[in-house]
Structure formats: structure tokens, C-alpha cells
């Protein structure tokens, strides 16, 4: 019932977005792009965080952010310009805002360290804000704003959502906050909706407020005060001297002149009314046709989306069960209806999964700051270029991908990109380059981190691997096998351990994290030219389109996006007794699932002998690599709800997950990258089972 927590969660989520926005704006300013729009964005982000924090009584955030806001206001008004020193202070102040947002006010009050940081940053900002740190008190903020000559008088009519008290939102908090951004001249508390005590629900709000308010803040800032209660509330903010207000006054006072208002005036008033309503619509108060032309967003708790996806997963499984039952009936009408149901289920699944897709660009933008700070720390000059930020990926994957990406980018900056001096000596541009890009490729998302640094030193990897007894001196490894050693636990070629990378504890974790997302990492490198780390991931982990095959008595699902084609294995002649087939001139290694998983045939041997000796081969592709999977039967396309593997199967190679079929049987989802790798590595082994 009491759900202040929900509102606070919204505040945290919005603040995080606003802080990211501030980061991006500061980076733009640092890059010389300090136009009015960027500076306004910066100011507004700080201002909104301050306003929201005030509503929740988080005055440690309000007080700290207020001085940042003052500095940014001076920047907007061209009183001061942002130099390098101020920029560094603003970056630190923005980071500290993030810390304060994540720190409980009581913890803050008891933390001398946090207060010390606040104080130091206040002092640093003070010279740009032209106010003393000791003066940063809410009441003084009030008087300072009030003394502004540009203030405007407003009439605010508040009929807040009746359940706002239950949601932990007390109108008194909003009124208190209004006092911090202006002066309240009068409040009339309306009680016309307050019922008899016997009839009232004590947890609902009945009071209505009319406030005469004066402030130098723009209307949008006053509207922001109520951003957490806009749903089901009526909030009218009207300038005192506006024609609409005068008209309303006339109506309220029941002045006889009202009858003299001509139709033209009424029409004008209607237009004003419409504008007021549309303005409220920006905050989602009510709906009108005008607002329909704009894209609207609804903030939904991600857990609710996860529940929806899980339910649709269950629906898909149920649908498959209905499919298998209906097929037995041979009832055409029923089968037709089921087919239609299937199409709708598929559309519903796609639409639901689409809800969880987010552009990777939001995550990429964080790297601008990471690269900036890391470059400063390393004393290197590095430029980050981002492409493909609009590429969408499942939100769950994006969250899990951030840490591995940070590690790869930091590694590239620390190990890859050389110092300016070394680059000049090598005839390169003094400024190093990191490219972060994303794009779709054959049902997967590929994220690449490339640098124009010194490349991977293969000799050093070999020496290190030998010294760690990972390989022996006689080992002959391909480039890919050599680079794969970088993912070995504890492997690092960097002689000097820095606090950024080089401890050898990162890349193996990076690889494991990516594999846990059903992805893979590929490395390309050329000494002296640079390196490229490509992470290949499925679009989603929840429900996939699969291709159902059988081998022995077991069911398998091949992710549909990896299937190239299927054919009868008998049409191929084996090549030099190797485990590969010649597909239109391309030599493709294959693996027999029955042999690989050591499967038995459930049916008596004589039946098998008469029934079927024919085998099928499914050609699959992951990245640039192809392989064939030899199976007994092709069952066809199927929607697959991915379930995690139980611990018994986790150690089984070639399996990435499981799924429930419509008939209740379990099918294993094949780990295609692993099977392709296996088929390539066993290509030259003598043939045993298949002839």
C-alpha cells in the first residue's frame, strides 16, 4: 500500500539518466561544442535532479546541486566561460552528485569523508558561482531567487491524484519545494471534496490547493516539481496576468460582464484553454488529440517486462502442446484456427521481446567519459569514435555486457594504444584512436572494439604461455589459438601491473561473461597496426526461433539464425576420409551429433535398419566459420523458450540451454560456436561411425 519506494526508484532511475546526460554534455563542451542547447541541457539536468531531490527531502543533494546549478546558470548567461579547470571540477561534482544520490541522507550526515568532498567541491565551484559555501541553505536559496527582478506571478491549482498519500507523496513536500524556488504569497486549501468522517478513506487525498506563487523560475521548472504525481492529477499553472486567468477570474466572480463577452473572445479563450491543456499533456496529465501526434513513453518496471516475457514463454510452450494434439485430430478447421493462433502468438512474442530491446548507444555513451578519464590517467591522447549506437539488444544482455566492454576498452587503451612519443616515432598520428561499433549480422549483434595501437605481440604471448606451462615450446598455434591464450586465467603479458589492467584477472572473466550470454569473442590483430575485439551475441536470450532436429532418441534445437541449409548427407562424398564435405567447392567440416553426444537409438536395430539409414546434414554458420551437423531427422522450425541448464548438463560441451517441447519432452539447445570449433578441430581425425 505505502509505496514511496516506487517513487524513489523512479527518482533514482531518472537521476541516473540525467547524470549520464550531464556527462555527455560535459564531454561535448570539452570537445568545444558548447552551444546554448548543450549548456541548457547541462543546466536542466542539474536543475531537475535538484528539484526532484527536494521533493523527497534529500536536502544533502539539493544543497550540493544548487551551487552546480548556479555555476551553470552563470555559464548560460555568459558571465563565465568553461575552462579546463572548471570542466574538471564539474566532472567531479557530477560524479559526487551520483554518489550522493546513492547515499542515504543519514549515512551522508554521519560520513565525514563525503561531507569533506562536498565541502572541497563547493569551495572549488564557489569562485564560479560567486556565493559562499556557508550560505548554501535552502531558505537562502529561496531569498536569493526571490530577489530576482525577473520573477513572475503564477496561480497554481493543484488537485493531486487521490492516491498520492498512499504512494508516499505528501502535498506538503511539493509546497515546501515550491518555497525553495520562489515565494508563496497565499495558499487556499479547498475542502469541497472532503466527505463526512464516516465516509472518508483516511489514506486518500481530498484537499485541493490554490497557490499564489511568485518565482523567477520558468514554468517548466514549476511543472517539474510535480513530475512524480502527474498521473491522474490536475495541475494548472497559469500566469497571473494571462488573458485566460483574467477570463477565469471573471467567470469565478460571476461578474455580470460575462454575458457581454462576445463569441470572438470565447473562441480566443478556448484556444488558450487548449494550450494550457496541451502544456499539461507534456507531463501526461490528460489526453487530447493534439498529443497523439507525439511519441509517448511510459516508464515500466523492468521486472514487469520480465514477467511478461516469461508468461509468453509459457504460452509458446502451451501452444506447441496444442499443436501436437491438434495434428493428431486431422481436423482441417481446427488446424487452420491453430495456425492463426500460432501467427498471433508469434507476433505477441516479437512485440513483447521488442519491449525489452534497447539501443546499445546509451551504454556506448558512457564510454566517452571512461575513455576521457582513463586517457588522462594514462597520460595518453586517445579519441573515441562510436558507430552503430542505434543497434538494439535485449536490455538484460546490455546490462551484463557493460563490464566486459569496459575491460576490453581499458585494455585497448592501456596495452594497445602507444604513448604519443612512441606513436610519433612509429610514424603514426600522435592521437590514438579507439573505435566502438555495433551492427547486426545474421541474427546476431556484433560489437567491436578496435584500436590503432601496437597490436598484439605474438612472440610475447608465446613466451609467456610457455613460462606458465600452458603450451610447450614445440607447440604450433594458429593466430586464433594464440590469441585465445589471452583468455587463460592469470594470463598477462604486461610486465608492469597498473590499476587499470594488466593483472591478468580480467580477460578470462570477460570471456566467461560473454560466453554466459551465448556469445563469443574473436580477436584480430596486426603488430604495429592495431587490434580488434569482436563480440558476437544473440539478439535475445529469452525466446528464439529454432530448428528442431532429432538424433538417436534425443531432441535438439539449432538456433535458426545459424542455419544455412539442410541436405541429405548421402549426396556428399567424403574427402580423403576426412570429416568434411564438399559443398559447392567449399570444404566444410562436420560432426555427427549421435557420435558426439554418444547417443543410443531407442528403436530395435532391425527396425532402424529397414526404416532409415539415411542421415541429414544441417550446415550452420557462426561468424565466418561454417560446419555441418549430422542428424537423423529434421523436424522443422520451432519457437523455443530458452530455459537455463540444470547443473548436471552445464559441463556438457556443445549444449547452451534447454527447452520444453509441446509433447513435454526436453530438447537441448545446441551451442553452435562450440560445435563448429569442435568440428574444425576434429576434422582430420579418422572416421569411425559414419561411412
Amino acid at each position, binding site marked *: 500500500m*505505502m509505496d514511496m519506494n516506487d517513487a524513489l526508484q523512479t527518482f533514482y532511475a531518472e537521476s541516473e539518466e540525467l547524470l549520464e546526460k550531464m556527462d555527455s554534455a560535459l564531454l561535448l563542451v570539452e570537445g568545444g561544442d558548447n552551444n546554448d542547447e548543450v549548456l541548457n541541457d547541462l543546466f536542466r539536468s542539474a536543475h531537475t535532479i535538484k528539484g526532484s531531490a527536494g521533493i523527497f527531502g534529500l536536502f544533502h543533494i539539493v544543497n550540493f546541486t544548487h551551487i552546480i546549478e548556479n555555476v551553470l546558470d552563470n555559464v548560460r548567461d555568459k558571465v563565465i566561460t568553461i575552462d579546463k579547470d572548471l570542466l574538471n571540477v564539474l566532472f567531479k561534482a557530477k560524479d559526487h552528485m551520483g554518489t550522493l544520490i546513492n547515499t542515504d541522507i543519514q549515512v551522508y550526515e554521519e560520513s565525514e569523508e563525503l561531507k569533506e568532498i562536498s565541502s572541497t567541491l563547493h569551495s572549488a565551484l564557489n569562485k564560479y558561482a560567486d556565493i559562499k559555501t556557508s550560505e548554501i541553505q535552502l531558505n537562502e536559496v529561496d531569498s536569493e531567487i526571490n530577489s530576482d527582478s525577473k520573477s513572475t506571478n503564477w496561480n497554481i491549482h493543484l488537485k493531486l491524484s487521490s492516491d498520492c*498519500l*498512499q504512494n*508516499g507523496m*505528501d*502535498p*506538503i513536500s511539493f*509546497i*515546501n519545494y515550491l518555497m525553495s524556488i520562489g515565494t508563496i504569497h*497565499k*495558499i*487556499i*486549501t479547498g*475542502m469541497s471534496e*472532503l*466527505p*463526512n*468522517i*464516516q465516509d*472518508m478513506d*483516511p*489514506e486518500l*487525498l*481530498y*484537499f485541493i*490547493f490554490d497557490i499564489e506563487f511568485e518565482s523567477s523560475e520558468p514554468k517548466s521548472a514549476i511543472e517539474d516539481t510535480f513530475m512524480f504525481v502527474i498521473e491522474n492529477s490536475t495541475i494548472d499553472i497559469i500566469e497571473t496576468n494571462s488573458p485566460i486567468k483574467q477570463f477565469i477570474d471573471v467567470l469565478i466572480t460571476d461578474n455580470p460582464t460575462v454575458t457581454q463577452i462576445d463569441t470572438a473572445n470565447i473562441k480566443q479563450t478556448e484556444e488558450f484553454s487548449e494550450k494550457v491543456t496541451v502544456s499539461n499533456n507534456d507531463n501526461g496529465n490528460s489526453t487530447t488529440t493534439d498529443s497523439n501526434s507525439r511519441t509517448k513513453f511510459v516508464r515500466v518496471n523492468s521486472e514487469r517486462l520480465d514477467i511478461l516475457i516469461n508468461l509468453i514463454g509459457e504460452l509458446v510452450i502451451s501452444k506447441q502442446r496444442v499443436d501436437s494434439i491438434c495434428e493428431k485430430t486431422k481436423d482441417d478447421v481446427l488446424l487452420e484456427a491453430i495456425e492463426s493462433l500460432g501467427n498471433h502468438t508469434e507476433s505477441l512474442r516479437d512485440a513483447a521481446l521488442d519491449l525489452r530491446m534497447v539501443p546499445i548507444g546509451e551504454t556506448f555513451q558512457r564510454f566517452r567519459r571512461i575513455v576521457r578519464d582513463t586517457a588522462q590517467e594514462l597520460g595518453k591522447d586517445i579519441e573515441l569514435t562510436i558507430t552503430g549506437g542505434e543497434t538494439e539488444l535485449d536490455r538484460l544482455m546490455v546490462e551484463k555486457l557493460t563490464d566486459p566492454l569496459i575491460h576490453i576498452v581499458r585494455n585497448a587503451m592501456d596495452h594497445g594504444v602507444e604513448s604519443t612519443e612512441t606513436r610519433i616515432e612509429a610514424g603514426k598520428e600522435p592521437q590514438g584512436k579507439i573505435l566502438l561499433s555495433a551492427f547486426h549480422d545474421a541474427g546476431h549483434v556484433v560489437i567491436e572494439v578496435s584500436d590503432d595501437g601496437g597490436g598484439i605481440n605474438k612472440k610475447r604471448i608465446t613466451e609467456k604461455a610457455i613460462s606458465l606451462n600452458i603450451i610447450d615450446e614445440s607447440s604450433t598455434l594458429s593466430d586464433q589459438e594464440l590469441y585465445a591464450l589471452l583468455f587463460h586465467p592469470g594470463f598477462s603479458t604486461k610486465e608492469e601491473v597498473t590499476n587499470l589492467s594488466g593483472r591478468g584477472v580480467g580477460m578470462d572473466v570477460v570471456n566467461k561473461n560473454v560466453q554466459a550470454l551465448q556469445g563469443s569473442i574473436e580477436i584480430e590483430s596486426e603488430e604495429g597496426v592495431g587490434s580488434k575485439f569482436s563480440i558476437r551475441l544473440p539478439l535475445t536470450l529469452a525466446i528464439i526461433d529454432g530448428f528442431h532436429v532429432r538424433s538417436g532418441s534425443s531432441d535438439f534445437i539449432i538456433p535458426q539464425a545459424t542455419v544455412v541449409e539442410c541436405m541429405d548427407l548421402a549426396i556428399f562424398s567424403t574427402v580423403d576420409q576426412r570429416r568434411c564435405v564438399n559443398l559447392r567447392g567449399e570444404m566444410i567440416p562436420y560432426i555427427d551429433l549421435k557420435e558426439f553426444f554418444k547417443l543410443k537409438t531407442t528403436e530395435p536395430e532391425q527396425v532402424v535398419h529397414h526404416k532409415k539409414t539415411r542421415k541429414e546434414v544441417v550446415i550452420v554458420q557462426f561468424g565466418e566459420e561454417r560446419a555441418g551437423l549430422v542428424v537423423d531427422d529434421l523436424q522443422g522450425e520451432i519457437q523455443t523458450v530458452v530455459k537455463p541448464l540444470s547443473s548436471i548438463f552445464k559441463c556438457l560441451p556443445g549444449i547452451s540451454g534447454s527447452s520444453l517441447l509441446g509433447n513435454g519432452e526436453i530438447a537441448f539447445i545446441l551451442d553452435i560456436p562450440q560445435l563448429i570449433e569442435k568440428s574444425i578441430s576434429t576434422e582430420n581425425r579418422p572416421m569411425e561411425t559414419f561411412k
Partner: protein
Amino acid sequence: MFNLVENDDDFEIKINGDLTIYNAIETHTYFSELECQQNKKYTLNCEDINNIDTSGLQLLVAFKNKVISNQALFELKNIESEVLSKINLLNLKSELFITE
């Protein structure tokens, strides 16, 4: 949370705790069930109320309405400064018959 003391023609109700959304149901139940007698005076002793929110203020106004509709008298006494500041903020002093 509520102590009712009868003195001659008056009733004094001592409220031992805050009047906020957290105990709004309990407060509502008490105020709703309390029978108001004509021509009696009902005084709410607020000395132990340190905090009040809008739900508490609504209940005070609703209870006052009930008292006066029963042709009885209503009074608030010993109002703590924190509570008084909220009453002032919402401009409810005259509504709650606070004269001081």
C-alpha cells in the same frame, strides 16, 4: 494512542503519537467511532504530536466538522511548533479555530 478524559462538560482527547498516513486508519477509526454529544466541548491535546502530514490534517478537519455538526465545540491545544507550521503552511488556522 488516544486517551479520553471527561471533565465536567468537556472531553479532552490526548493524542499520543504522530498524525500521519502511517496511523491514519487507527486515527480515523477512533474519530469516526467517538460519539459527540451536543453542547459538549471536545479538546484535542496535541502536545505529544511531533509530526503531522496532510492525511492527519484532513482527519483533524473532518473530526472538527463532525464535532460542530453535532452542535458541540471543538478546540486544539498545546500544538507543537512543527505541527503549527504545517497548519500555517496550508492556511488552516481559522479552519481549525486556532486563535493564538
